[in-house]
């Protein structure tokens, strides 16, 4: 097998190229993010967490939700090393990670990770949230190596 590639620092995709849209089910998540609070959608009836936020609890069919503030820490569940900025096609090292969120069993976020070289990202790595300003005044949760 060939040797692993040495990529160097894992970068954040620039916030000014990122847009999101919201709907009434998802907006509380993004409003909390704007206040630099990480939350997840929790069923107020049975306590089951679900992401992305949606209209019904898949366990008990309740429409009632809570938005607890999470610790903002998590664990890398999987990842991929990418080498082109998707907006420009230019060489750009970034690492999308799938993160298991602490304090909200079964929920994840997809984000970028920083604070280490791309080749050092690994499954099981502990991460903490960091906040990236994006278009339209929204704020995106990303992660850095804990």
């Amino acid at each position: 097998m060939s040797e692993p590639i040495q990529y160097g620092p894992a970068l954040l995709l620039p916030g000014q190229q990122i847009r999101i849209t919201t709907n009434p089910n998802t907006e509380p998540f993004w409003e909390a993010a704007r206040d630099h609070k990480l939350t997840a959608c929790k069923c107020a009836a049975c306590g089951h967490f679900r992401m992305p936020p949606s209209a019904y609890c898949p366990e008990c069919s309740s429409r009632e939700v809570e938005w607890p503030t999470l610790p903002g820490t998590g664990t890398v569940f999987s990842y991929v090393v990418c080498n082109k900025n998707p907006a420009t096609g230019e060489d750009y090292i970034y690492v999308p990670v799938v993160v298991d969120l602490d304090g909200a069993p079964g929920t994840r976020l997809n984000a970028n990770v920083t604070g280490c070289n791309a080749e050092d990202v690994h499954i099981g790595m502990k991460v903490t949230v960091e906040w990236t300003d994006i278009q339209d005044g929204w704020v995106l949760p990303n992660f850095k190596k804990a």
Partner: protein
Amino acid sequence: MAWANQDKTAIVGIGATDYYVRGKSWPRTINDMAGEAILKACADAGISIKDIDGFAYYSTAGAGYLDKFDTASLMETLGMPNVSFSATLTSGGGGCPGAIGLATAGLMNEDCKYVVTLMALQQLPQHRLGVVFGSAAPNPENSFLQPSGLVGPGHLMSVLARRHMHLYGTTQDAFGEIVMATRANTHNRPKAVRKNPLTKEEYEASVMLADPLRRLDFCLETDGAVAVITTTMDRAKDCRHKPAVVHACAHGGQREWGRAFAWMGMPDPHFASSGHKFTADRVWAQSGLSAKDMDVALIYDHFSPMVLMQLEDYGFCEKGEGNDYVLSGKIRYDAATQGGVNGGVPVNTHGGNLNEAYIIGMTHIVEGVEQVRGTAINQVKDAEFALVSGGPASLPVSSLILRSA
């Protein structure tokens, strides 16, 4: 219990255009290519275009990634007098072989007599899948995925492959073997896009696009059209070729897989899988067969690791043992014996999406038909059963077993 519709319908006609490298089919239009595939499938079946009275699409009737098939337009273009069945499976390429089950539903309900299933693909620069994924302002659901820079299907599949490598020790060598083993099946295929034998050194020199996946782990980007015609067994007996009998067919999946890599919420062990366990179990239950009974497996190969994960989900090997199964040569086709290697079942004897052409799964159905007819270029000797699978993606995915008549 055996499927109520087992051996009641058959694929009787197959038709395809040339396979063009992405974007090279212009100035042909997508309906021009679709029409050629349908007319060729009618000629192959020995029926008139005017006999066609049903359409069973998949991919939400998509024609590639931006165009849509429209039954009214097709019947006015091609001159079918009446249409009495027009339906589609939802989601994407995962439904490809499942569309034959949809055709069977229409036929067994006596809605129609001859059903077309087709795909046409024309990837002009603005129609490329990666571009389509990445350029759209994300909807509220996709706003939880796209900002991470997971914009191309290769990015998404790499995340699953990485988890499989972590859990089971799967290696990039196995991904390379899948590409090389299926490339070895195209040197004698005039229409194949990639025909040169592939060495390990060439594979390892292929550029890393989304680590752990290289360019050669990604399928081709092809323009072209493929159509097949399904009818009832009594009508099939009057067609030109030996019928490719629909022995089992299922689409769907389970909630744990759900949106799959369009969200990344799957728990283990579903995450590092192809999401095919549910439909695999259904076609095995419908038929009373298992993986070892298959003579050939036409496994949707948009990305090489997803072949390995389907081998596990269909039970060609145990979960987590795909790496060793592949590296022991068991997916290869041996032309000398017209059979498998080392006790395995030959996979993608046509070269698959990785090497022959990528028409969102339709070429796998065509190869399954030719294998059970006994007319395949890389014919498996006395092939009785062919498995065809549809692309691991958001549900539904689907599975089909064809049987020789």
